């Protein structure tokens, strides 16, 4: 297949490009105009070409879609104020979908996120799966969740209006080399001090190489069309287990100030009630003091990847320990050996 991959220079995007190449696909990697592509080990691979476009504007997008069989849309803004993230996530998606409609390239694998779920109103210990409720009060959540919710709505609208073959994947927290510190562990108070909130909650993790494989499989599998699929690994660790493995390998540790989940939950609820009743909802507290944001990161819940396994025929290749070993090894994880003949005919 010829795949257009947006966000190809991002953390997950690079692994998706490599996985697609390993599986014998042709890749057109969308990178921003000022990107230095020579830093990618795969930049001169025979099956890679680059589309230098900025998705925040329309120009060049229709050309970039010429001859493409499917689009893997990973591009999104993860930082910045609301309007920065709106441009990088929502307007980028709007422009891409418009160009796809114009080009009649309708097969889309859209990468959403676990952030779209309604965590506050979900009871502790509940199972989060594809049928779990979506956030109904986006303004209570951070900019990332707000913009990803709008993005997912745009994709569903595109699917409905064009009868388009769309798959929405919702990866959990993607981790891997250089991205091991995780927002579900705690909150950064200063450069050297972290508040560690809770210890026993399961973390909805997916190792970047596992997740990349699931994304490419979604493009390959007919059964994935019309599906929304959560992506998390097997045997998910608790915060305590993950932190122990991580800290054992880190040279310099931030100072951790432990906070009990029940206590911080109560404190946050009190602040929220005070804001609603006394301050008329005008106050904007730091993230962990907002219940919807706190619950989204630290609430003890359980997760499943049953649907991903069933529809994508996916089994997460690397366990947590293997993922840590690979992340801390000297091995180049982004090299491509010759694709399997069986896969190259896909």
């Amino acid at each position, binding site marked *: 297949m010829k795949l257009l991959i947006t966000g190809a220079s991002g953390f997950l995007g690079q692994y998706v490009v490599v996985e697609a190449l390993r599986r014998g696909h042709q890749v057109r990697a969308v990178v*921003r105009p*000022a990107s230095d592509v020579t830093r990618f080990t795969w930049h001169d691979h025979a099956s890679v070409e680059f589309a230098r476009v*900025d998705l925040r504007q329309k120009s060049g997008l229709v050309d970039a879609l010429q001859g493409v069989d499917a689009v893997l849309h990973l591009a999104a803004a993860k930082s910045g104020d609301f*309007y920065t993230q709106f441009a990088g996530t*929502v307007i980028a998606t709007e422009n891409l979908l418009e160009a796809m409609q114009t080009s009649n390239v309708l097969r889309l694998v859209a990468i959403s996120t676990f952030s779209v779920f309604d965590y506050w109103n979900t009871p502790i210990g509940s199972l989060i799966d594809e049928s779990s409720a979506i956030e109904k009060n986006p303004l209570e959540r951070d900019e990332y969740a707000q913009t990803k919710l709008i993005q997912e709505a745009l994709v569903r609208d595109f699917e409905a209006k064009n009868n388009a073959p769309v798959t929405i994947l919702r990866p959990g927290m993607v981790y891997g080399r250089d991205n091991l510190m995780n927002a579900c562990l705690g909150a950064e108070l200063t450069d050297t001090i972290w508040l560690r909130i809770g210890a026993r909650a399961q973390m909805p993790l997916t190792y970047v190489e596992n997740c990349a494989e699931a994304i490419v499989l979604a493009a390959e599998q007919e059964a994935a069309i019309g599906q929304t699929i959560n992506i998390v690994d097997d045997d998910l660790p608790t915060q305590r287990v993950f932190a122990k493995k991580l800290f054992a390998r880190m040279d310099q540790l931030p100072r951790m100030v432990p906070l009990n989940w029940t206590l911080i939950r109560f404190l946050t609820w009190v602040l929220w009630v005070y804001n609603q009743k006394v*301050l008329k909802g005008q106050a904007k507290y730091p993230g962990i003091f907002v219940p919807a944001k706190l619950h989204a990161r630290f609430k003890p819940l359980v997760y499943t990847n049953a649907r991903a396994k069933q529809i994508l025929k996916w089994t997460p290749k690397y366990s947590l320990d293997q993922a840590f070993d690979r992340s801390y090894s000297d091995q180049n994880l982004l090299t491509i050996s010759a694709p399997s003949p069986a896969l190259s005919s896909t």
Partner: protein
Amino acid sequence: MTALKAAVIGTGLISKEHLSFLDQSKQAQLVGVCDLSSASAQYAAQRYHAEATYADYRQMLSEAKPDVVHILTPPHTHKWIAKDCLEAGAHVICEKPLTSTYEEFKELWAIAQACDRYLIEDHNYRFNSAILAIEQMIADGTLGEVQEVEVRMALAIRKGGAFADENLPNPIHKMPAGVIHDVLTHLVYLVLKFLPTEFDRIRAAWSNHGGGSTFKYDDLDAILVGGSAHARLRFSAHTLPECFDVIVRGSKGYVQTDLFQPYLRTVVRRKAGEKLSPIVNHFINGTDLMRSSVRNFSNKIMQRTPYEGLHRLLDETYTALLNGNPPPISFEDMERTSRLIDALLAEENRV
């Protein structure tokens, strides 16, 4: 009271401030929002309760028939959008800079006059509490006759954000003063607010200390002299932290503030007499600074931003328009601001 029908063109970052005012004001009825991005327009409409969304502002003008249009698009588009709005019979409130040049300002003003509509450039910081307090101190004679004004803004625009983005260069870079054009209007109208004089000697050094081709300039150092009155205008992208300092010196004392972290430090002769005034000033200013720290912390939690003056400006503008009075930003305010910006640009690269 009948509300004025308001519409907004451009739903980017600054639109949040305009739309939040229009959403809560009883003097305005938000009949439409317009943006080339339909997703952006729809978000704005949903968030701030607009009656309709448009991708074409001309269609919005003809269908929604707004009394007032807020133009919040990139500066190089202001002139022709404003012209169309005025000719459609709407008053125009436009983000700064209203036009790229003084010539364009005069052309647009002539159109507004011909259409019998008001044209209002956003001079929001003039309506911030700290600036109003300084204005009051001048009015009641606390500072005496104003002799010097310094306005200094430092922004970390080289360290990231929309202006430093090389992938999608911001249109502001194509303005005559480059990225400094985005803030120069603020610096100039604040100087003119406190020193409404004709400056006969103007010197300005425009620099690009950070180099590269994205930024035309990232630094401005200007001295203005009119008679015995002096003003200094300063913009830096390098000497951080970020600030927006205003110092007004009069014949009886001086006052300073930072509009990003507001406080007032007033050094004047106190009732205790000349000898004790320095120590009294220290104690009073120390106390005020502590109060300001608490107030600024509270403001941050309560989402009161340095844009507080914009709501006040819009409120006064809508009140004036509803009552048939001239708006608080006058032709003279805008004309002199635009003319002084041209004069500063005429000093390009001259030290």
